[in-house]
Every structure is written in C-alpha cells, then in structure tokens.
C-alpha cells in the first residue's frame, strides 16, 4: 500500500473533489444541457408536426383550388352556352320579327294597292258610265228615263267587260 501511495486523507479529498465537480457540473452542465436538449427535441417534434399540418393544409388548399377552377370553368362554359343560346334566340327572334314585319308591310301594301286599284276602277267605271251616258244621249238625242238608262249602261258595261276579256 505504501509503495502504491494510497493515502486515506488524500483519498477522501479526492472523493470530495469528485462530489464537488459533480455538483458544479449538475448545476452548470447537466441540468441546462439536458433541459436544452429536451426542449430542442420537443421543439423539433412540434415543428415537424406543424410542418406536417402545413403540408397537409397546402395539399388540401391545392385540391380545393383545383376544384374551384374546375367549377369555375364549368360555370363559365354554362354561361357561354347560355349566352350563345340567348344570342341565337335573339337572332332568330329578330329574323322572325323582321319577317313578320315584312309580311305585314307587304300585305298592307298589297291591300293598299288593291284598294287603290278598286278605287281607280270604280272611278273609271263611273267616268266611263258618265261618258257612255253622255255619248248615248248625244247619239240617241233623247234622254232616257232613269231606269232605262241604267239598264242600258249595264248592258254596255257587260259588253265592254266581255270585250276587254277577249
């Protein structure tokens, strides 16, 4: 024991030294470092979880976004379809209306023409009758009574119409 140098007071002092170092390190190294390591791993775990959530949210948002775009496209297609349909309808309606209007105008014009023609014809006929009456009175030299007169006119007229037709 002597040769090795084992010495009780020194031994005890060394044990006390160990205790002292343990206490110092406990206070200044182990506790803060362990706390820090734990806090850090906790934080990393949290961040990872949070990151996971964010990624998930982003994915969901993307899906929702795509869905929206798809919907919007569908909606716009519908709107376009509807618009073109409406346009077509309007066009057809306008054409229809125009046609109707045209028909009305044409028929009115035709009526007018017919009316005018008839008026002209009746005026002509009247004049013609007067002329014939005058001519006849002049030729016969005598005035027919009214009844005979008109019968005569009708005869002439019928003759003239048949003549015209031929």
């Amino acid at each position, binding site marked *: 024991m002597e040769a090795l140098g084992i010495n009780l007071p*020194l031994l005890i002092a*060394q044990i006390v030294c160990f205790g002292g170092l343990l206490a110092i390190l*406990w206070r*200044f190294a182990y506790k*803060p470092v362990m706390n820090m390591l734990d806090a850090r791993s906790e934080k990393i775990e949290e961040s990872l979880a949070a990151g996971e959530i964010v990624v998930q949210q982003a994915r969901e948002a993307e899906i929702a976004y795509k869905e929206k775009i798809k919907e919007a496209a569908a909606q716009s297609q519908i709107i376009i379809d509807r618009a073109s349909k409406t346009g077509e309808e309007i066009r057809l309606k306008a054409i229809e209306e125009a046609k109707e209007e045209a028909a009305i105008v044409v028929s009115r014009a035709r009526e007018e023409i017919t009316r005018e023609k008839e008026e002209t014809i009746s005026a002509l006929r009247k004049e013609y009758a007067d002329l014939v009456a005058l001519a006849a009175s002049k030729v016969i030299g005598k005035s027919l009574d009214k009844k005979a007169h008109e019968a005569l006119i009708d005869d002439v007229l019928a003759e003239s119409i048949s003549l015209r037709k031929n």
Partner: protein
Amino acid sequence: MVALLALTVVGFAAGALGEVLLSNLDIPDWMRVERPEPHLPGTALFYIGPFPFTNTFLATLITILVVSLIAILATRKMKMIPGRFQSAFELVIGYVLGLCEDIAGKKLGRVFFPVVCTIFLFVMFNALLALIPGYGSVVVTTVDGVHTELLRGANTDINFPLSLAIVAFVMIEYWGISRTGFFRYMGKFFVFTGFAHAFKDIFSGKIGKGLKALPMAFIEFFVGILEFLSELVRLVSFTFRLFGNMTGGEILLVMMMYLMPYVLAIPFYGLELLMAFIQALIFGGLTLTFAYIATLPPHGADEKGEAH
C-alpha cells in the same frame, strides 16, 4: 519540412538511443534529456495537518477548475440554436447522455447519467490536461526537500482512480439496493433458496428429490459467493485499469522522450490522446453497465462477467 527532419535527426542523436549508437557525436548538454525516474505515489508539495497536498491533487483541482469553467462558459448563454462552443459542449454531454439512455433506458439512464458523465469528463480531462506540453515541466522543491514536478496527471496517482472506483462502487450498490430492495438485492449474492427448497422436500417426505436438489443448492450458493467477490474485485479492477493505463502511458511518454526526444516521440502523444478518451469511456461505460445490471431483478437474465 527540412527543419522537422533536422529536428528528428538531432533529437534521435541527442536521445539515449542515439547516445549509445552514436557515442562519438558531441551533443551539447542542454539538448540532452535527463534520465527520468518514474515513481508511483504523488509527491507531497506541502502538508495541511495530516493531509499531503500532492502535485497530483493540485492537478485534480486544476482539472476541476478547467472543466467547471468550460461548463459555465458553454451554458452561460444557452440558445435554442447553439453557437460552436455550445454545440461542441452539448455534443459531448449529449454523447454520454445518449450512451446512458441507450444502455439503461430513458428513465434509468438519466438517473445514472450525472455520475457516469462526471467520471467520464473527470478522467478524460485529467488525462488530456496532463498531455499539454509544459504540464509536467515545472519543477519545484517541496517542503521535504525533493525536486519534483509541480503538476502531475491525477490519473497517475492511485488515490484518484481508487476514489472514483469507490464512488462508482458505492453508487452501483446504492442503485441496486434502492431499485430492487435490500433483501432481494442481497439475495443475488447469498443464495439460500436452493437449500430452502431441498430441505422442504426432505422434511415433507420427498427425501429422494430433496437429496438430489442438495448439490445444485450448493452450486447456487457458491456461485452467489463468487458474484459477491466479483462485486468487490470490481473496486480493484476499476482502480488498476485506469491507474495502470494512465501511469503506463505517462511513463511511456517520458521514456520515449528520453530515448528519442522531440519528433520521434510525437506518435506516442497521439496514442495517449486516444487513451485519454478510451479510458474515460471505459470507466464511465463500465460504471453504467454495472449499475444497470445491479438494478435488474435477480434471476432475470444471466448477467455476469466483467469486460477488461
């Protein structure tokens, strides 16, 4: 490069080997390295009552100072995102903490960790500081009139490894008893259960069966006693493993410096650097392992033997 080569050659020539092999060379005296006289006990610088204040004890105090200073500086302003110094310190502490948690589990590992880590740091820094050039070069005259180094690595004084071994031993037994209970823990070493079963069989009429169980009971008892002895022997093996390695390393360095001074002795410094880490790891690791084994319930896994 040339200077290094020259120093290598001169160093070799100036050393003891060179002196023998090339005795005709005239090397100036100041280049000669004195013949070392290693001695095992630390030398007392002065006495406080019966307490010898040795150079190794001074080295212990310096180690404590250095380790504490590093710890305080590293953890003074702890940040979530650490700087280099804090990172390095956390790396070391985290390494030992990881070791403890790997071996003994998360909860128990944290119980063992402070003692294991202190042993690890203490042993390693003792050894590393002793390797700093100039550490053993300051020579003083003690009150006893002896010329000696002012500082000598504490690992090379048997009191230091022995104190660590005692601490480790006491803590291991304490953990073992507190975790498994006094009687259950002692039951690992003093195995009477075999006898109890055998005699119960004999007295309850099953004499044949009881007699057959008796030799097994003897063997179990004997194994228990061996376990107990190995527990005590651990104290010695712990002490001398560290003491032997460190003292041997120190003497190796001194002898190499004497035989082939300057450059050729450098590889042995590298060896001792490695040794500092390995011995610290072995001491801490074994303490951890034994502590864990001690806390296992008896008759669990068959845990015996000691790594050397």
